[in-house]
């Protein structure tokens, strides 16, 4: 009887980990999405041996709205971006005009980084956009992870396939491989420096590498982040861009 109880006790954690992919994605989405957010972000772009560092202040409301202002370097100071639903607006100090970005420009790297404007435009949660299967369990940077193969439900997403490594403790995707429809690896995206912010887990550091371009790497470090903050309505308007 004692042996039976011991066996049950050992089996319980395993049973607890037998999670469905949809449940897992719900947890991941909970970490990656928010009602409102204000943050200071340092973005360092390393390309062909040259390094450029940007400091941005950004505001977000849900998955649909995001506003971002560049504070450094000097020449980019005052550059602003505004995402509203599926539209992206930009204010460049050099032309002093608000302009909507569309077409080919959306596929360009944001400020020359490995993140495209399309990456910013992603709105749907992973649970809504992908179906997947757990293909294994591994240890990544000393943390137990699920390796999950996600396939897009339709063609509206930027990456038809994502291979993700989800931390079993925090539900943060510590590593992602992003693939094109052809199967070509486009980018890798890693998250680290996971901290608890309120009731969520948040990765303070991300590294994105464009695998199509060689010698290209973008590091994103959150200097500060706050969730559930009150934000002025004007921040998410084109008036804010021109202010």
């Amino acid at each position, binding site marked *: 009887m004692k042996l039976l109880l011991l066996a049950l006790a050992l089996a319980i954690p395993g049973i607890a980990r037998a999670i469905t992919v949809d449940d897992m994605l719900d947890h991941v989405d909970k970490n990656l999405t928010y009602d409102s957010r204000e943050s200071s972000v340092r973005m360092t*772009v390393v*390309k*062909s041996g*040259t390094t*450029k560092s940007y400091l941005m202040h950004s505001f977000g409301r849900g998955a649909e709205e995001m506003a971002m202002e560049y504070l450094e370097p000097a*020449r*980019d*100071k*005052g*550059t602003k971006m505004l995402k509203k639903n599926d539209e992206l607006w*930009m204010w*460049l*100090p*050099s*032309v*002093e*005009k608000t*302009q*909507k*970005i*569309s*077409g*080919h*420009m*959306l596929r*360009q*790297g944001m*400020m*020359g*980084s490995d993140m495209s404007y399309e990456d910013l435009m992603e709105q749907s949660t992973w649970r809504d956009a992908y179906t997947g299967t757990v293909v294994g369990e591994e240890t990544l940077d000393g943390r137990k992870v699920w390796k999950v193969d996600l396939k897009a439900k339709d063609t509206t997403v930027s990456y038809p396939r994502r291979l993700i490594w989800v931390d079993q403790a925090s539900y943060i995707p510590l590593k992602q491989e992003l693939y094109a429809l052809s199967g070509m690896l486009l980018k890798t995206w890693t998250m680290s420096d996971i901290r608890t912010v309120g009731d969520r887990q948040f990765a303070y550091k991300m590294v994105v590498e464009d695998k199509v371009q060689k010698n290209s790497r973008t590091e994103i470090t959150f200097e500060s982040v706050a969730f559930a903050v009150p934000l002025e309505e004007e921040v998410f308007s084109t008036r804010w861009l021109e202010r």
Partner: protein
Amino acid sequence: MELILSMAVRNLGRNRRRTLLTALTVAIGVALLTIAMSFVGGVFWAALEKVSAMAGEVRVVTPRYAQRDQLMPLSENIPETAALEAAIRASDGVTAVYPHIAIGVTGAVGDDEIGERFGLLHGAPTEFYTERLDLDAHLQEGTMPSFGGEDWASVGARPKFPVYALVGRQFAEEVGAKAGTEVILTGQRQDGSPSGMRVLVAGVVDLGNSAQNRQLWVSLDAARWMTEIPAGATELMVFGEDWESAPELAASLRDEAALSGLDVRAWSERPPYDGLVGFAQVLHAIAGGVIVFITALGVLNTMFMSVLERTAEIGVMRAMGLRAWQSVVLFVVEAMAIATVGGAVGVLVGAPVSLYLGHQGIDFGAAVDKLPPTIPINTIVRPVLDWNVALMGVVLGYAMALVGGFLPAWRASQIQPVEAMRSRR
């Protein structure tokens, strides 16, 4: 030999209708050949000359730029060009050096969205625009701006003076600009970050082909500011005495110590132009070959008839001591004489037609727009007739007669006198 020549000339008059028909065949062949060669020359050689002016007879870039030059990677620039320009200028055979920056931009007027209408922006010295591209001669409206003189070093976030641009007709139409319109251009800096610049359209140029008409030209300083390459360029374009000897100039420049570690190539040695010369030559050869072959068949036919008609006569002549090779010469000379007359008539007919088409032009319209933007073939193609084409027409006229006349002549030389004299003819 004199006897054979006089016999050959006399034979031409024996069946005047057939001689006239053969000469006419050669004349038509030579005329077609002259027109075809002029056309191919008009399309390709004109495009190649334009390509060499547009892309530089010899181009100096970094090896990494050369590897990805289709993408025009601004990050792979030559950071300082002044010393290199001086070294190249001092080299034998160099007549001009221009630093050049090419950058893909999107253009918008007023509140239009950016990212929909594309153009290729050039920054280079004014002399390149006027002496190599002849932009001032192709102004459709507006004026040639006086590029330069602005204090770009002190420009901060935005130039406070007007930045003038020349704009290709097609790009101007697409964005809805004309002389005096302000166009907002968005491109990239060398680090890939977005860079914007307002330009004032000084003039709209029509260069006759969609590749160049989708382009824009600003001062080198403006392009340097926009791309954040303050003292450099993506490429150095070098010009020598003539565009056809660019490979020799490139070879000599490759030996210059100042250019070691850089990619130095003539326009004809790098893609997408490296195959063009060969392609043009193949087209020439195919056009010439087909016409020569068809015409030679006509000559062959009439000359064979001549041999058959004169079998008995040849037999008698052979019996009287005419050697086999002499009978070959007899018929070949006949063919050559026909080719001389036919060739001359062919050139006299083909040359004016080529000149007329060269003057009028042949409008290929939208079909040319489907060609790659790096190959500037004009919408209106003008055949170009030069003495080489006319001379080639005459030479190939002889080739037609020789090809068509040799086989019958050989056949005549093989006739046995006894058998020939037995024949009815």
